[in-house]
Every structure is written in C-alpha cells, then in structure tokens.
C-alpha cells in the first residue's frame, strides 16, 4: 500500500466520505474506490464486484482474483433525545463502538457544553432539530426524557423515516400509554412494534451507567442483526 492511499483514507474519513480501499495482493498496489468513479488499471476490470462488496458493507477478496476490498462507511448516527445522566454514559460507550452521537434537548439547562464537552448538541425541540440532521435508514433514535412533549415528536419522525433502531425509555406502563398515543396519531400496530420499549436488553441493572450499557448493547445487537 502506498502512503498516499493511507493519507487519502484519513482525508476521506475526516470529510465523512464513504469509500473503499482496494489492494492488489499480488504486488501491494492500492487505490481508493469512490462510488460512481472508475478505477485505473487492473482494478477497473473488477469495478462491479468492488461495488457489490462496498454496497453490502463487507470486506473481502473478490472471488478468483487477487483484489482485496476494504469498505469504509460512516459510523451509525445515534440521535439521543434528552441530555440526561444516562446520555453521559452512552457517549462514553459510543466512543469506542463507532457510533456518532447527537444530543437533542430543548431544555438548555440540561444540554450544556460543560456536561457534554465533545458532543454535538442541538438545543431545540425535536421537530426543529431534525431539520439540521441528515438521517437515513442507518440512523438510530434513543429517547430518554420520557416526557411525551419531547419524546413523541422524535418517535413519530423516526417511525416515518424508518430508522433502523428506535428505543424509548420508560416503564411498561409508560410505554403502553405511548403506544396508545401513537395509534391515535395514525401509526399502525406493526410500525409501533418496531420501537424497543422499555429500551435496552435485560441486564438487571438500574443505575444510569448500567441502563446506558443495556441500550448500547441493544444498538450493537440490532446493527449486526440488520447487517448495517
């Protein structure tokens, strides 16, 4: 691999581009693949196979060849509604698990720079905040305020946009009431069932850090289940 490929990789990562590094294993030659742009030399013969591996979020050798493809996709975006105590731990866990976190909370006394020094914070109501966030089916939503005023608009948005993961904090009772409100708002039972509520996998813990661990575990599980 050329040092140029390594430097280009780092540049593309900082620009949040999605790409692949292709290596010719027989001589160590390497190039950067960007969707829609053709490659030079021997790599150009394998362009459709490279695209196939890239689109399926995999790494690997193209069958019957000496071409290795390593895919670089942007981290999964996790929107957390509620700058609460659990969120501080979620951010800590997310750092080492390749998730990008955005905090949304209209209550500015909660979502302060001091409490969340290195995280993107949007001090707005979810409906306004979502205008500023690019979302897709690789986006996740975690609602933690259990205040319907704040959580519900975010949940409705995520359901409509088909986020791959939606989790809502709150007891079984809170969640039942939430489901009823969503039915009244016109969502189907099937759609509502995609919400993980009560949020997280059952670990038994009750402290904010333990709840954060159960939420992040569920996110990792769903990421691999959905091959995202």
């Amino acid at each position, binding site marked *: 691999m*050329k*040092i140029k490929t390594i430097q280009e990789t*780092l540049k593309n*990562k900082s620009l949040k581009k999605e790409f692949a590094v292709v*290596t010719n*294993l027989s001589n160590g030659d390497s190039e950067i693949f960007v969707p829609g742009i053709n490659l030079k030399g021997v790599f150009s013969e394998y362009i459709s196979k490279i695209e196939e591996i890239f689109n399926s979020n995999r790494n690997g*050798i193209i069958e019957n060849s000496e071409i290795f493809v390593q895919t670089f996709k942007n981290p999964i975006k996790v929107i957390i509604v509620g700058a609460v105590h659990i969120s501080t731990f979620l951010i800590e866990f997310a750092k080492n698990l390749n998730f990008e976190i955005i905090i949304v909370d209209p209550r500015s006394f909660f979502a302060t720079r001091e409490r969340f020094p290195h995280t993107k914070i949007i001090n707005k109501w979810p409906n306004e905040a979502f205008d500023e966030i690019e979302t897709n089916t690789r986006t996740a939503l975690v609602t933690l305020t259990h205040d319907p005023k704040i959580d519900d608009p975010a949940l409705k948005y995520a359901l409509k946009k088909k986020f791959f993961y939606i989790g809502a904090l709150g007891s079984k009772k809170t969640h039942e009431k939430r489901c009823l409100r969503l039915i009244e708002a016109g969502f189907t039972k099937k759609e509502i069932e995609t919400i993980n509520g009560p949020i997280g996998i059952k670990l038994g813990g009750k402290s904010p850090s333990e709840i954060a661990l159960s939420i992040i575990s569920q996110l990792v599980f769903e990421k691999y289940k959905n091959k995202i």
Partner: protein
Amino acid sequence: MNNFAEKQIFEKADNWAKNNKKIVLATVIQTWGSSPLGIGSRMIINEDGNFLGSVSGGCVESKVIEECISLIKNKKNCKKIEFKVSNENAWDVGLACGGDILIYIEEITK
C-alpha cells in the same frame, strides 16, 4: 465492519512515515471457521518492532511481527501468511479457537 480502529492505525502509519520509519501493514484478508477477528482487521508494525492494532486475539501476533520485520530486512514488498488450528505443540503459534486465517503483510511505500 468497524472502521474505528483502522483510523487510529492509519494515523499511526502516517505519523511513522513522516518520521521516515519503515512500516509494514498486516491485514486479515480471509478467514475460515471460528476466527478471532473479522476480515479487514489490521495491525501496523515499524522497523523498531513497535506495533498497534491486532489480527487475532493475541494468538499469532508475535509471529506476524517477526514476519513483518523480516519483510523489511529482505526488502520484499508483500507476503501472505496462513495460520491454522494449533494442535500437538501447545507452544506453537496457531489458533486455539479452531479457525484458519490468512494474513497479508505489505510494506508501506512512498
């Protein structure tokens, strides 16, 4: 696919290259059975034997580092190394987990 570690590894490679160190990149390019780490897992090694990242759960790293340093010494460009299940000799380098991995080592060139 988790690119988090790759970014740190590439940053380290860039940093070593700026200090004119000879560098070898090791990548898991194929796996069979239950391998400890997935395809695309990487480790970077410099001529002084310093390294970052991993290509297994600690099972084959020492051998890979040895191979990388000899790649630099022999002025070779690249090489594939296959590791299979370790059996009779418990101290032999191999994968106790029962899988096979193919590792590609290559020198970082200007």
